[in-house]
């Protein structure tokens, strides 16, 4: 049985997928995950999830958002002037990064 493993480095961060383990039950899966994925890299918590419990939908099945030009819904599309609040600047930077990663520009 295959268990997908999600690792969280520090309290409060996201659990992100880091690999999988082969184990007969949940207890064994947790032990293997701890050994294989929590031993070297800094780890606060691990999740193990049976692979068959994971639903997947991919870009073959559906057209995901974020690939067509919807510039009107990005902060970067609005050329306002003057000093913006720091949280607005931060949001715009995050959006600019996401926009660059969109891959069609």
């Amino acid at each position: 049985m295959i268990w997908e493993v999600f690792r969280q480095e520090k309290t409060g961060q996201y659990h992100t997928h880091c690999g999988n383990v082969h184990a007969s039950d949940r207890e064994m899966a947790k032990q293997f995950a701890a050994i294989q994925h929590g031993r070297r890299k800094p780890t606060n918590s691990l999740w193990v999830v049976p692979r068959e419990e994971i639903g997947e939908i991919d870009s073959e099945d559906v057209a995901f958002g974020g690939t067509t030009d919807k510039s009107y819904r990005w902060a970067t599309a609005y050329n306002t002037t003057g000093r913006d609040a720091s949280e607005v600047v931060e949001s715009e930077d995050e959006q600019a990064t996401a926009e660059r990663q969109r891959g069609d520009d």
Partner: protein
Amino acid sequence: MDLETAKERAGPREFSPADDLPEEYRKAATRMIEFHANSEIMGAYLERPFIRQAPSIDRKLAFSAKVQDEIGHGQLLYRAAESLGVKTREEMLDDLANGDGKFLNCFHYPMESWVETPMIAFFVDGAAMRRQATLRRTSWEPYAHAMDKVCFEEGFHVKHGEDILAELMSGSKKEQQLTQEAFEEWWPRIIQFFGPTDDKSTHHDFAASVGLKQQSNDQLRNAFLDQYIPKARKYGLEIPDEPRIRERDDGTYEVEEDDLDWDEFFTIAKNDYEPGLDQINGRKAAQEAVQWVRDTIEGDASAAGGHAPQAAD
């Protein structure tokens, strides 16, 4: 975990659903996040009519994207609230419909004209974003994670709102005048967004002691005024004489609390403000109109065959 331990451990993103948290914490966090979730939903309903009334196709696209975002924020926040185990999502939505759910003061006021839209989309969203940015460090991890996504999206709302304001204030004399009038009407409400001053705030101390709230009402109000008064002036808006706002020597602001209508504020806080009831009942009607969708999804076959309810707008 007892309350003392929770207070000792309290830090950014410290607590997750895996922790056994004291009831006081879970209740306070539920109250705060439910209020936030309700506000996202009620704000979206307030702005929704302006998708139809938008003066151009660009504004229409942006406004519908924004309203869609706000509804999404509500969904994220109900999840963060329900993960505390105090109230279910259905209970929170029903409470909002029957008038028991509390939400932001600004969203109790009717909004009738396009010139009012930047009052919400620039000033209120700007105020909200200031607060939300600090909540990325709240102690309830699911709330902080919701804030990551909300803040990512919210920058567009604020800048779009600012763009509308810039356009109106460089438009005709009449547009400028109507925008100034809308600003004068909304300005005191926007100041009250941050709630009463620290010494009169009833929930702050506990929420701060367990790391739920990161900054006090006064700190947030100051930070907002510091950023948004210069912006308002830059676009040619005149700051109303009241409430009187004095800049202290250290650059922070002092608001003359007595110049604000606190009777109205607390009437609103109790959901007793007459014009606000239309907002609450309007959303209730929309919730009822799409009850058949929920029933169908939940698999209640009998609901699909009954009378055809009016589609939600």
